[in-house]
């Protein structure tokens, strides 16, 4: 595991307002990292700092061993960015926007521009002015702008904002493909947790200007999920089952059990099947990212 982003004790103040205080984390090459936090928690500020667009009040950062303050130019060459507003010229056509930004990033490959426009289903709209695009189309064009030069690190600020389900699927699939095909490190900010759950390999939880937790999903699950809530669709009579398996809720054929660990699940299922009942569906309910997010934030707030 080679670290590509190293951040130690970063602070950022705008006048008297402290946006970040003591932010530290590491991102390894080839990871897809989700930076999660509520609106206004400082996610965008971190992206700006990492690219040397703004300077930190204190702390150290290294991106690919470069300091964003003194070697920001090198970082910006290997970075691709999708900002929240996408930053496109509305009076220019879609393809002209890409040609313009392509030149700034040293890409004059018209074939690549056309290929990406096709991949993101914008080829038919390339001659229209961006001002006439829907929010989803602007976002997709913004993503093309960000990946045009095959960046080593891709920073995506709320990439699925304003997209319809089809658009979300398209964007997430492309992010995943980029990572798998080219080993692109992806740093993704979002507050829509269920959407990014399928692509991220690691998570950073930002709250009130500091990273309150980080790790892979299984690491976080181990740490925070004390009880497992399992919803099973079955015709089992719960009274006949081992009393070890506590029933939290029953709604017709849907029974929700509370287990101490995941390891108890095979025993419960075996118990049901052994007694000749059927099982149509099994789902662990409190292991999704959203549950983890609230658990982590809840515990931290309790600590304060």
């Amino acid at each position, binding site marked *: 595991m080679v670290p590509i982003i190293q951040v130690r004790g970063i602070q950022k103040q705008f006048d008297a307002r402290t946006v970040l205080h003591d932010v530290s984390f590491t991102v390894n090459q080839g990871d897809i990292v989700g930076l999660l936090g509520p609106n206004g928690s400082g996610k965008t500020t971190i992206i700006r700092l990492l690219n040397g*667009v703004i300077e930190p009040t204190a702390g150290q950062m290294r991106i690919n061993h470069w300091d964003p303050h003194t070697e920001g130019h090198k970082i910006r060459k290997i970075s691709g960015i999708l900002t929240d507003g996408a930053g496109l*010229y509305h009076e220019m056509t879609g393809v002209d926007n890409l040609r313009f930004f392509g030149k700034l990033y040293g890409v004059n490959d018209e074939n690549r521009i056309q290929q990406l426009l096709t991949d993101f289903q914008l080829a038919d709209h390339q001659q229209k002015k961006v001002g006439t695009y829907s929010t989803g189309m602007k976002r997709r064009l913004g993503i093309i702008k960000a990946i045009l030069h095959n960046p080593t690190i891709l920073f995506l600020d709320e990439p699925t904002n304003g997209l319809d389900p089809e658009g979300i699927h398209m964007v997430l699939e492309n992010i995943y493909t980029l990572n798998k095909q080219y080993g692109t490190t992806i740093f993704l900010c979002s507050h829509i947790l269920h959407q990014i759950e399928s692509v991220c390999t690691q998570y950073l939880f930002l709250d009130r200007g500091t990273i309150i937790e980080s790790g892979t999903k299984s690491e976080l699950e181990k740490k925070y999920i004390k009880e497992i809530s399992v919803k099973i669709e079955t015709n089992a009579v719960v009274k006949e089952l081992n009393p070890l398996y506590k029933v939290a809720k029953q709604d017709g054929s849907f029974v929700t059990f509370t287990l101490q660990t995941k390891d108890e699940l095979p025993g419960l299922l075996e118990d049901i099947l052994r007694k000749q009942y059927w099982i149509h569906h099994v789902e662990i309910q409190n292991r999704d990212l959203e549950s983890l997010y609230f658990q982590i934030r809840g515990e931290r707030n309790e600590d304060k």
Partner: protein
Amino acid sequence: MKINKNIVWTIAMKDIKGITSNKQVLIGLIILPLIFAVIFPTVFILLLNFVPLTSTEVETMTNTILSALPNGDSKDTINQLPSFNHQMIYVVVNYLLGSMFLLIPVINSMMIALNSFVGEKERGTLESLLFAPITVKELFIGKVLSAFVPTMVLTVGSFVIFGVITTAITYPIFNGFIFPNTNWLLLVFWLSPILTLFTILIEVLVSARSKSFQEAQQIGGLVILPIVGLFVGQATGMLIISPIILLLVGMFLLMINVLLIFLISKYNNRNTLFESQV
């Protein structure tokens, strides 16, 4: 770091295209040359020539300019003209309209340059540029060029149109050319580029520090005052344009330009540019 000319031109051309493809902006930029290079000379000269003037103001002004002129070729040429009407036309064409003509490069470059950074901020695109692998220097030069090139095209174009119209009207009156003289050539090819650059540098500096176009306009508009001063200088005879004066004013502005470039490069880094937009 070495300046990447391709990037500079890409930024400049993007902005120039933005100006030429926007009819409203284009009309705004053309109105001024139309007034100062076409309407003003035509109306002034024709009025002076064909309408018997009773206005003592123009007369007094002409006399003031004539008496303020140093002894030399210009004064002799004017004194040898056949009538006072001829003298008035000569003075209007070569002194008054000259200082007014400078409003073309100043106001046009002001309007383009004022919008340079504020326009990017208002459209939310400045951040995209700051995230791109371009230096702030390249961005500034690109922005300066995007105002300089169209302004100079308009200025030289206006000069040619002004010349054709003025000559077409004055040639039969004077039986010869009274235009262009050294003053005019210096105004257009020496002072205009320097003044345009001066205006752009001031406006770019103001634009980079302002949060809205309106705010930039209020501060940046002050740049017009020296031109008004030059015009008043002609009318009152306090500062009559001559090749020497034009050369000196140009040299002075050139030095100020160097100072402004130094100031801009010192005070405008990414962080400052960014923080002025939030």
